[in-house]
């Protein structure tokens, strides 16, 4: 199986590489369109600021490539947010894969949300064998509201989408690669899709 992690200059890529290795697979880093298109599974990571990350995607032409991919694609954290229509962070237009706009938590809660929180109302093969209310590690200041594509819910200030799915596209707000053994199981589930 060929796993490609999209390398566009944003993200803690090494942690995902290591997690995939712990699961017994190998991944390659790439920003090459042909290599990404030929992959069996594509992981789209990202940490940092949305408008900067989007600019980097545009500069490499990946903004048009990613929405056209046919194989399973997994956006993580900012990667997931960039797959949405729009983000309030830097008023950034996203890739439009998930039909939802990303908003900012209000100062009623500490921002960023940092730490372990539960995922529930799980609705996808991504969560095969995963119990309701398991804890995942999250670090984020912006969130995708609940929508038709929500496949996992988390509550912080309000209930929001901690994972999304649309056809072959999957997104997680949490970091499966940093969420202990259960997180690794979710990553393994994606690789088996």
């Amino acid at each position, binding site marked *: 199986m060929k796993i490609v992690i999209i390398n566009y200059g944003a993200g803690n890529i090494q942690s995902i590489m290591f997690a995939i*290795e712990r699961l017994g697979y190998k991944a390659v880093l790439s920003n090459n369109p042909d290599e990404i298109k030929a992959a069996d599974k594509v992981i789209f990571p990202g940490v940092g600021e949305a408008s900067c990350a989007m600019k980097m995607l545009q500069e490499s032409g990946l903004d048009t490539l990613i929405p056209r991919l046919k194989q399973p694609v997994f956006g993580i954290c900012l990667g997931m947010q960039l797959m949405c229509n729009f983000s309030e962070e830097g008023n950034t237009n996203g890739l439009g894969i998930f039909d939802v706009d990303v908003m900012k938590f209000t100062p009623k809660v500490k921002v*960023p949300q*940092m730490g*372990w*929180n539960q995922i529930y109302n799980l609705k996808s093969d991504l969560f095969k064998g995963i119990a309701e209310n398991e804890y995942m590690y999250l670090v984020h200041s912006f969130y995708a509201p609940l929508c038709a594509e929500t496949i996992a819910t988390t509550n912080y200030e309000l209930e929001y989408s901690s994972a999304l799915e649309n056809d072959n596209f999957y997104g997680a707000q949490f970091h499966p690669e940093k969420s202990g053994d259960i997180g690794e199981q979710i990553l393994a589930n994606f690789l088996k899709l």
Partner: protein
Amino acid sequence: MLTKRIIPCLDIKNGRTVKGVNFIDLRDAGDPVELAKIYSDEGADELVFLDISATEERRKTLIDLVRKVAATINIPFTVGGGISSVSDVEALLQNGADKVSINTSAVKNPQLINDLAQKFGSQCVVVAIDAKQINGKWMVHLVGGKMPTELNLFDWAKEVEQRGAGEILFTSMDHDGTKNGFANEALATLSEIVNIPIIASGGAGNMQHFVDTFVEGKSDAALAASVFHFKEIEIKTLKKELKNNNIEVRI
């Protein structure tokens, strides 16, 4: 609900764990990677690696160690000690660290906080603040607490938040090593005046101290070293105790 976090801190010197540890099942008690794995398996929510000699000796934190830890454990970890530039941080993050903690270098060059937050995102910038009370005022100290400054803890905390820090790790030097509990009054004030997570550090001696810092101190996370290293408190037991006190934890 978002849980309170329990964070063991490992002091590192020359790539080895410094403080004596009391894990009988360890082949090599000085191996930070093996210790990290044990803590991760016991239910630690995060780990902090502090290169304690780094600031004084101006030595760079060990990249090799970061890589080995990141390859082995599947929970987040922070690296601190001797970090003074964007390129230092880049190397640590590229090798698998999730966050970095800066202390002395942030006071000497506050712009570093802005630069790091802009380049890597606030989520990976922890500002560590060591402070003690002088004439009733909490004053920031540097170089492992040896050098006093004119900075007031609360003013500095607000400034680091405004500059883009994602989290504050506050160590009370008045409480550190006493095992008499955390500086809950100051911690509660910090939680009121800033809107980023606060990690309590210094003073952990028993399980009730953790309960107190989460309830009275309003801390988001609690960090400790020796009570975990010497097995005076086991993380699994501590989390059960917290849960019994209606504190949300990941078990």
